[in-house]
């Protein structure tokens, strides 16, 4: 069955390649137009401003959510980091459970889904539109987001499904349904269905098209411009081979290389920052000044804040609900333990990795400032002028390249791998939402996987603007539904937390020797 599908798809891709080159450029344009016109209304709905202001309601929604969880759980993200690390190290894991999913593995898999282009391209977008000050708001959003992640991942484990054949999976669609039923609240099912629809859109948008798009930009930046659909078809072929053909070897190689790339990326950023050690103070000055004044950036302080919060949420996905899907397979008797572990995710993703990217861009002087110290805007007036007019991944790449000339090549490989691992993760999240809506079954699952691969091609062919708008909108729509659910279910998490903490104090829960 699998093999036959696989061959059919290869044949179809081959046909496309034979017939298409003559129309290549126009295909890209058509895809772009169709895409922008068909998704515009959705984007406008999600990003509409509060009446009479330029402040999008969705940003306020995420910030208020993260703040409520932070206060409700008594700043759990600052008090429990030590315990979270002990859990990841396996200090509290029963040795007899060896061979099951460890806390470390759940965290690593969730991270490989979030660490990616958001950290490289997204931060560049934030800093070029919102100025250095966006970094401050991004870090703050990362710290607050830890509490959102804590809440959703605890619920993800508590209400997961353990199937008779031994598979374990969960996520917002399950905690919304089961959790609401347990509390005797109506509407859980409706929220779960809405979440699943948005999750599918998010998987196709931020988890797929944005990744394909940026991967194409990276590759074409190095080998020269060529039509995006070519990258799309190649990427789609590889993704297809993994998720439909079951080629585990590719996924396994990626999963091993991605963490290494992440460490290499942070290490290189640190080296560049240390090379410019004299400017670290200045860079932080820019970040703090910009956070509250905007330093003349379009939109001023609010512009910086919106960009910072938006890109942080897009990067670490706190409150979005996706991570709850990845974390839920862990082996533990206490759902709250996975909540603790998941706290570390926004910290690593946003507070560490995103901040590194921002610092490198600022310190290497990629943003062009005028004589008065304020940043100059580009011709369209939409973003800060950059050296060489770069944006997105291109800006990050130029920043790293200005310090280490060969690093853009390494970065290109990293971007492609990050993009790929994020796609694999999101194809899974999307599939779980899909099977929640339509039920499980080989044909139903295959339909989603094929749609997913088609969107890889569309994403690579479309322009960045419409893709990034749609990706953001879809992912934030997930957060709308998920956070409503979290408000109703947070007393359950609180109960778990109190019970666990008291048993930890009394010595009932002990470390294993």
């Amino acid at each position, binding site marked *: 069955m699998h093999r036959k599908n696989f061959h059919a798809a290869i044949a179809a891709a081959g046909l496309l390649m034979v017939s298409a080159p003559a129309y290549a450029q126009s295909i890209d344009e058509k895809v772009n137009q169709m895409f922008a016109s068909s998704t515009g209304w959705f984007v406008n709905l999600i990003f509409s401003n509060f009446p009479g202001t330029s402040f999008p309601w969705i940003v306020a929604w995420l910030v208020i959510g993260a703040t409520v969880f932070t206060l409700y759980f008594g700043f759990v993200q600052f008090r429990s980091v030590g315990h979270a690390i002990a859990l990841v190290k*396996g200090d509290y*894991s029963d*040795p007899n459970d*060896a*061979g*099951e*999913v*460890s806390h*470390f*593995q*759940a965290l*690593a*898999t969730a991270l*490989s*889904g979030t660490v990616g282009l958001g950290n490289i391209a997204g931060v560049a977008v934030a800093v070029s539109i919102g100025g250095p000050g966006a970094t401050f708001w991004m870090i703050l959003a990362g710290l607050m987001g830890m509490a959102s992640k804590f809440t959703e991942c605890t619920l993800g484990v508590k209400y997961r499904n*353990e199937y008779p*054949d*031994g*598979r*374990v*999976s969960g996520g917002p669609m399950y905690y919304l349904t089961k959790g609401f039923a347990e509390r005797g609240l109506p509407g859980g099912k409706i929220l779960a269905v809405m979440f699943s629809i948005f999750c599918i859109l998010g998987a196709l948008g931020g988890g797929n098209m944005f990744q394909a798009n940026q991967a194409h930009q990276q590759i074409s930046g190095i080998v020269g411009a060529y039509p995006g659909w070519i990258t799309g078809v190649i990427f789609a072929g590889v993704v297809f081979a993994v998720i439909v053909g079951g080629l*585990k070897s590719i*996924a*396994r190689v990626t*999963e*091993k290389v*991605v*963490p290494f790339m992440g460490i290499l990326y942070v290490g290189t950023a640190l080296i560049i920052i240390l090379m410019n050690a004299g400017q670290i103070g200045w860079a932080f000055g820019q970040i703090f000044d910009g956070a509250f004044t905007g330093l003349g950036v379009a939109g001023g302080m609010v512009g910086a804040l919106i960009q910072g919060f938006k890109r942080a949420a897009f990067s670490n996905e706190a409150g979005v609900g996706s991570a709850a*899907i*990845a974390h839920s*397979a*862990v*082996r533990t008797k206490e759902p709250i333990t996975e909540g603790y572990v998941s706290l570390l995710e926004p910290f690593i993703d946003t507070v560490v990795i995103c901040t590194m990217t921002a610092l490198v861009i600022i310190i290497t002087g990629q943003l062009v400032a005028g004589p008065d110290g304020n940043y100059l805007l580009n011709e369209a007036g939409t973003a800060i002028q950059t050296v060489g007019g770069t944006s997105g991944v291109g800006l990050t790449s130029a920043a790293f390249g200005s310090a280490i000339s060969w690093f853009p090549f390494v970065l290109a490989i990293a971007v492609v791998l990050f993009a790929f691992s994020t796609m*694999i*993760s999101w194809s*899974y*999240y999307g599939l779980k939402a899909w099977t929640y809506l339509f039920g499980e079954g080989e044909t139903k699952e295959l339909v989603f996987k094929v749609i997913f691969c088609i969107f890889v091609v569309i994403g690579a062919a479309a322009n960045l603007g419409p893709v990034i708008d749609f990706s953001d909108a879809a992912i934030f729509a997930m957060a709308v539904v998920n956070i409503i659910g979290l408000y109703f279910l947070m007393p359950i998490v609180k109960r778990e937390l109190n019970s666990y903490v008291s048993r930890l104090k009394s010595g009932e829960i002990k470390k294993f020797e």
Partner: protein
Amino acid sequence: MSGKFVVGYDGSASSQRALEFAVDRSNAQGGTIVLAHVLEWSPYSFLTPNELEERHKRREEELHRAETAIMTTVVKDLKDKGVTVETVIKYGNIPDLLAKIAKDFGAIQIIIGRSGHSSLGARVFGSVAGALVQAAPVPCTIVP
């Protein structure tokens, strides 16, 4: 002196030789055999979301396979020969776990076969025998 002999057993020819050697010793001394099968596993490896979902199921399958394909026949053979045998199947680092099993069972010796990697291979990938002699709480015999 009677006592327990822990044998690292994975069904391979070298582990078979180790087992035969151990049976000879235990028969001579009136001891018993602890047949230990360790599935190599690190809690710090990386898995895809799909592998996470299926991990518990796969583990059950792997344990079942180890039990039926590797342990059952050899245990029956040994019992037919009148050898007293206990079995352990665990996940983890092979040398560490063999050492731990020896300690838990109060064994007097650990016996394993030698896989016969070249010295370069052993240098690159590490060798079970080399790591075991460093970690073992009791004398070890490596059967060539």
